[in-house]
């Protein structure tokens, strides 16, 4: 197996343009001018910082109302979960399922998996490397879908205004929820998946590394 990591040859691949170069003496890609490092700088600390901030905001995002509906029948506060329940009861169970997955399952899954990945990297685990690499790839792809509810609220607020029988205003839960989505995306970007493979290369016999 030619498992030679670029870092062993003193080179690093540019994460922007893909060119292999040396980050020493200047940590700048020669072709595109992005910053070039062997591993993303302070990746574990930055991932933890974004993750903890996302966890903190997760509670208000789910407990505070995302929409406040005022009509002649009274005022109704809706959280993310009550929106899912409303859709389910009104018979649109497919849409309800999509909203549930995008707004509840994906953010939780993303936060927990990323926490697991950071801990596994800090403990330098050597097992399940391939699975962890795939997990990270999935996380990066699905995180954006949590923005769904933010767009739903935007359209509802714009359409159901004073001229109609009811008005919908955004609740402070939207702000917290949008922040959770952004922070979890930033956390995934700050994490360096190459760290998953690093402990593996260090346990390899020396003759493989020429």
């Amino acid at each position: 197996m030619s498992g030679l990591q670029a870092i062993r040859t003193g080179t690093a691949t540019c994460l922007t343009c893909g060119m292999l170069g040396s980050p020493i003496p200047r940590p700048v890609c020669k072709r595109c001018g992005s910053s070039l490092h062997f591993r993303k700088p302070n990746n574990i600390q930055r991932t933890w910082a974004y993750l903890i901030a996302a966890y903190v905001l997760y509670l208000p995002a789910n407990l505070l109302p995302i929409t406040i509906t005022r009509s002649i029948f009274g005022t109704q506060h809706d959280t993310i979960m009550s929106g899912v329940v409303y859709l389910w009861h009104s018979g649109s169970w497919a849409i309800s399922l999509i909203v549930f997955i995008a707004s509840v399952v994906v953010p939780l899954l993303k936060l927990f998996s990323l926490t697991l990945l950071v801990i596994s990297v800090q403990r330098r685990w050597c097992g399940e490397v391939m699975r962890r690499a795939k997990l990270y790839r999935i996380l990066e792809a699905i995180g954006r879908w949590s923005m769904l509810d933010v767009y739903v609220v935007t359209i509802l607020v714009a359409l159901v205004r004073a001229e109609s029988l009811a008005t919908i205003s955004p609740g402070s839960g939207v702000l917290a929820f949008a922040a959770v989505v952004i922070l979890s995306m930033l956390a995934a970007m700050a994490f360096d998946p190459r760290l998953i493979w690093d402990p593996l290369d260090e346990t390899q016999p020396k003759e493989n590394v020429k």
Partner: protein
Amino acid sequence: MTSRSAPKQTLQTATACPECDLLVDGTTNSGHCSRCGARLYRQGRHSLDNTLALACSALVLLIAANAFPIVGLDIQGQRIETTVIGAAVSLWREEMGMVAILVLLSTTVLPLIELAGLVWMALPLRLGKRPPGFSWVFRVLHMAHPWAMIEVFIMGLLVALVKLTNVADVFAGAAAWCFGCVMLLLAILHTIVEPRDLWQAWEEAEQ
């Protein structure tokens, strides 16, 4: 460190997997990392003509998507319509400025930057010239890409429509279809625009 003894030529054709740091040969590889399976580049070269054609049409559609209303509501003969910018403005008025900016950036500004940047890079390259500020534009596009979320916005539009059908007559505006087409064109663009080929064209082009 063995870097000093390695010949320079191998360093230029070789690349390293961005996800596991494995050194791979950039010419004979299948396009995927042999260790972790990450996609390194796409096989088969697409012409800059395709990129240009798709990006230009998406750009026109995206401008139309912002000029026309996306959704409308019909309550007892009274029609209420909104554009994306109008929706962001109503969020802003409700003291949700941050969310309004986020919505505007992810549905309009960043896709616009992405498409305009592609045309900016591909048009001079097609004519055999190096576009001014190529590496800067390339970096901006790379940063903007994860935050442009038109496909999620379309899904949000659908959910909002379903929610409102129980209350009033709703209809999708012209912009909804424009956004749908932009989404499809962007999806095709992402499968044919290969950064490696762009840089190769840049290296071949005259300064």
